[in-house]
């Protein structure tokens, strides 16, 4: 709970700083605030407190997901701060980011459907603005607008689902819904099932799972690169946290019914994401499709709810997010050159030999090559799916991750090709260096010691 207050505090201080003209303090305050948030998330461990008449429930999953989100946010902030500072709206953008983070913390700690809806909206509305924050860029405006319209559409679907469920069982509270489902398991109405399906689809939009992914490539490509990094990491982790909490908290009794929905979402996401990614020439767009495919992999542990589900989601989320942020630090440098094509990376290995190795490692982690974090994430995700008996799904997952290896390697090959006609220069700031090394180290450590996360919950 204090995590939420600390993060919201950052946003408020950022806005006041603008009025008092002390914008310099924003970054230190944000770092301090996030550090406090991380600390409070840790101190909430095993407390299991309910807040506001059981609107929110800080159990260990909430604490773990909050901590992961806050840690990703710290690294993200370090990466994004040079970009946030350019232009006139440093404090506004920082405040929006902080509110968006607050929304994501709500999403992983709700215990009432109304809170879940609020969390999603707090997260999304800030992001609509952030996506369009590069005011002078037509693409950025388009991205914000597209995201807003389609997001509103998805919210509508989600809210319709919530309403139907309320109609069926007369409550928003997770525990009460769960009890209702458990007692009336045999004769639940079609209204209830429709509600569940609509909520799943609403959240599928947030995690960018196919076939509700259409917004993702365009929005990812058009938004400022740092915001894209935010969307593809923090938003995804938060949405998965919410999805898991919802399914495990309310609907674990009717798990056979919704498993097929997840199977379809997962298979379609893996195939569409990976196949489309092979056809991209823009690095940013490639990452958008790859993030769709990762949503597909992350759905695998949800096929059965067991002890492993939460932890493997957490491990996968961490592995994916840290590798992605590290790679986005490269994309943000490429964005400064206004050339985000994969070919513009030619000659990169020659001019930045060590960085080329680090980025290759991060890309290989996303591709799932041992002994990196991405491999361990995939390993546990596949293992969880195998345990639930979905062998054929795991086979599809393995085939599609092979396709994944192809396009990640394409990027690595591009880096190691000699310089082509363009000789773009890449200027890394100290911030990006810190982010890159941190992500690299985390990727290595999690790959060798997955127990750090798996042994937790």
């Amino acid at each position: 709970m204090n995590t939420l207050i600390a993060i919201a505090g950052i946003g408020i201080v950022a806005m006041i700083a603008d009025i008092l003209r002390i914008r310099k303090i924003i970054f230190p305050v944000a770092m301090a605030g996030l550090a406090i948030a991380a600390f409070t998330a840790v101190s909430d461990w095993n407390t299991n407190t309910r807040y506001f008449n059981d609107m929110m429930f800080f159990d260990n999953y909430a604490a773990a997901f909050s901590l992961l989100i806050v840690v990703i946010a710290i690294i993200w902030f370090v990466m994004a701060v040079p970009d946030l500072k350019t232009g006139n709206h440093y404090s506004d953008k920082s405040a929006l980011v902080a509110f968006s983070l607050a929304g994501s913390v709500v999403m992983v700690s709700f215990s009432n459907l109304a809170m879940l809806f609020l969390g999603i909206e707090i997260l999304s509305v800030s992001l609509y603005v952030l996506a369009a924050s590069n005011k002078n860029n037509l693409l950025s405006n388009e991205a914000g607008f597209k995201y807003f319209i389609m997001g509103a559409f998805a919210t509508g679907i989600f809210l319709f689902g919530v309403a139907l469920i309320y109609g069926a069982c007369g409550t928003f509270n997770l525990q009460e819904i769960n009890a209702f489902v458990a007692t009336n398991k045999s004769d639940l109405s079609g209204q209830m099932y429709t509600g569940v399906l609509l909520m799943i689809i609403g959240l599928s939009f947030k995690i960018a799972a196919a076939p509700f992914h259409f917004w993702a490539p365009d929005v990812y490509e058009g938004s400022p690169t740092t915001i894209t990094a935010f969307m593809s990491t923090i938003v995804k982790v938060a949405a998965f946290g919410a999805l898991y909490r919802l399914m495990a908290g309310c609907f674990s009794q009717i798990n056979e019914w919704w498993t097929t929905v997840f199977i379809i979402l997962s298979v379609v996401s893996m195939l569409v994401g990976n196949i489309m990614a092979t056809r991209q020439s823009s690095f940013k767009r490639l990452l958008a499709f790859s993030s769709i495919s990762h949503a597909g992999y992350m759905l695998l542990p949800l096929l059965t709810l067991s002890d492993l589900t939460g932890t493997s989601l957490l491990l996968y989320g961490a592995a994916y997010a840290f590798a992605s942020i590290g790679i986005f630090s490269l994309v943000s440098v490429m964005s400064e050159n206004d050339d985000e094509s994969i070919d513009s990376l030619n000659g990169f290995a020659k001019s930045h030999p060590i960085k080329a190795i680090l980025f290759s490692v991060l890309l290989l982690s996303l591709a799932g090559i041992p002994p990196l974090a991405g491999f361990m994430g995939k390993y546990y995700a596949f293992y969880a799916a195998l345990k639930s008996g979905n062998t054929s799904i795991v086979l599809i997952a393995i085939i599609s991750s092979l396709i994944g290896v192809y396009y990640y390697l394409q990027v690595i090959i591009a880096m190691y090709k000699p310089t082509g006609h363009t000789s773009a220069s890449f200027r890394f700031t100290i911030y990006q260096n810190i982010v890159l090394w941190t992500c690299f180290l985390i990727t290595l450590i999690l790959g060798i010691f997955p127990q750090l996360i798996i042994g937790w919950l």
Partner: protein
Amino acid sequence: MESLLWIIPVLPFIGFLINGIFGNKVPRSLSGIIASVAVLGGFIVSLLLFISLLGDENLSFTSKYFTWFHVGDLKLDMAFMVDRLTSVMLLVITGVGFLIHVYSIGYMHDDKDYSRFFAYLNLFVFFMLLLVMGSNYVLMFVGWEGVGLCSYLLIGFWFTNNNFNDAAKKAFIMNRIGDLGFLLGMFLIYQTFGSLNFDEVHSNAMTYAYGQPVLTTITLLLFVGAMGKSAQIPLFTWLPDAMAGPTPVSALIHAATMVTAGIYMIVRANVLFTLSVFTPEFIAVIGLLTALLAAFIGLKQNDIKKVLAYSTVSQLGFMFVALGVGAYTTALFHVVTHAFFKGLLFLCAGSVIHAMGGEQDIRKMGGLSAKLPVTHLTFLIGTLAIAGLPPFAGFFSKDEILVKVFASSPWMYGALALASVLTAIYMFRLYFVTFKGQFRGSHHQEEHLHESPPSMTFPLIVLAILSALGGFIGIPEIFHAPNLISEYLAPVTHFSSSYSARAVSHETEIILLVSTLLFLLVAIWFVYNKYVKRQAIPEPDEDIAGFGKTLAGKFYVDEIYTYLIEKPLNAISGLGYKFIETGLIKGVVDGTAQVVGALGLGIRTIQTGKTGTYLFAMVIALIAFMVIKFMI
């Protein structure tokens, strides 16, 4: 004491990081010192551990750091365990390792990749320590692979020479064959006992009856691993080639430590081996054949390091014979003394090569005793020790092996005694040809001859003292003095010694001892006559004929392997390339890529960029889900 364990391997690892990361930015004078001090620190801690283990028989230190892996029922801890067996190995690795590090400071001082050398050397020590300190088979395997890697890197240290690279690859590949055996053995252990921790596996195994087939399979597979690492027939040919590496590497890795890993592993798993039928006999026969074969080949080698290499193979054979007859502590005793005298001999050889400006052919040496007094004297001590003359170290350990072997099978004793006489012959031949007689090198070399710097002679002297006196830790029973090492190690093999307690009477032991000694003296006298009195020089390669030619050609084992394994493999892989690779796989892979590409084009048509289309697609998808869930 537990809290100290991590220091031992971490110190050399830090040394590796410093020398490895900063490379040539580390001042030259400093990199060698850093590396040596790191190993010395480990030695001091090992000594403390050793002393504190002296008291209680069943004491062992275990320190668990974290759970490394937990999948299903398999739980692996990152944990170190030091019992008496480990502590002996620790002393050898860090003690002899330290001396060799110091020696390398002098030996490598002209090399441009000074810091890289020490980085590798420290990394090797780190992995070797991991190998002996790990508390489960997996950690041991990590160390096992790690030392293999370092051995590869160090054999090919001078990578600009392609022959050296080939030697490195050969060592690596031969080791991989052995590793496969070890790995399969590990899988089978896990399947049988449900664990890979030493405690659990071994205490569980003790409840098994003697002669279970699964135990025989496990131990045979483990022994295949030991064959590779410890250069036994048929996987021994890599070790002589490994002499391509710098001489300190040969001393540290290919004489004193890594090659004895196989012996350590078998002693560690002695419960399994004791309970197995057939495997011990098999080990003894392989060891015996290796000891004989390598000793015969050693007779006709003219490269100073090659002679020592074959002698190492042969001595390792001795140790395996001891393991085969159940004399685990004796084998380890020989590991220790062998580390002393073979380390010493290699370092002396290095000193000679250093003085000769890189020359390794003993036919071009001779009469070096005057110019290299320290090297000469220490080499002589090493030769006396390896030949097994009292009171030098080799006498005690080799005698103990021979007696134990006699107790189990007299004919094996005979063959092994022959191998030990051969040892004396080739070693004294090496000594006389190198140090006595006239100098046969070029004039330029003669002027250049000099004794090595103190950093090189100091380790020689220390090792010479150890080679001379080290044997007294294991005095034979007939002298009524305590056999320190076998008493110290008794708890490790407690279970096994209750199984095979065959002993010979004191009279027999004395007869054996005296007769072996007599044979040795006759052999040495014969060599002395030939190479010193008659001043014979080993003939040039083209004049060698008859059986000698077969010996000089190393029994043509390499050539046999080429025809038996390499050529057929190449033929198969050629066929595979032609039909499976280009035909089948390439077709399937390219086909898949084309299908994926076409699919991508297809899906792409929906991704128009128009919001209206997207919304429409989403609604269609929503309806599709509805239909799937409610209509079908």
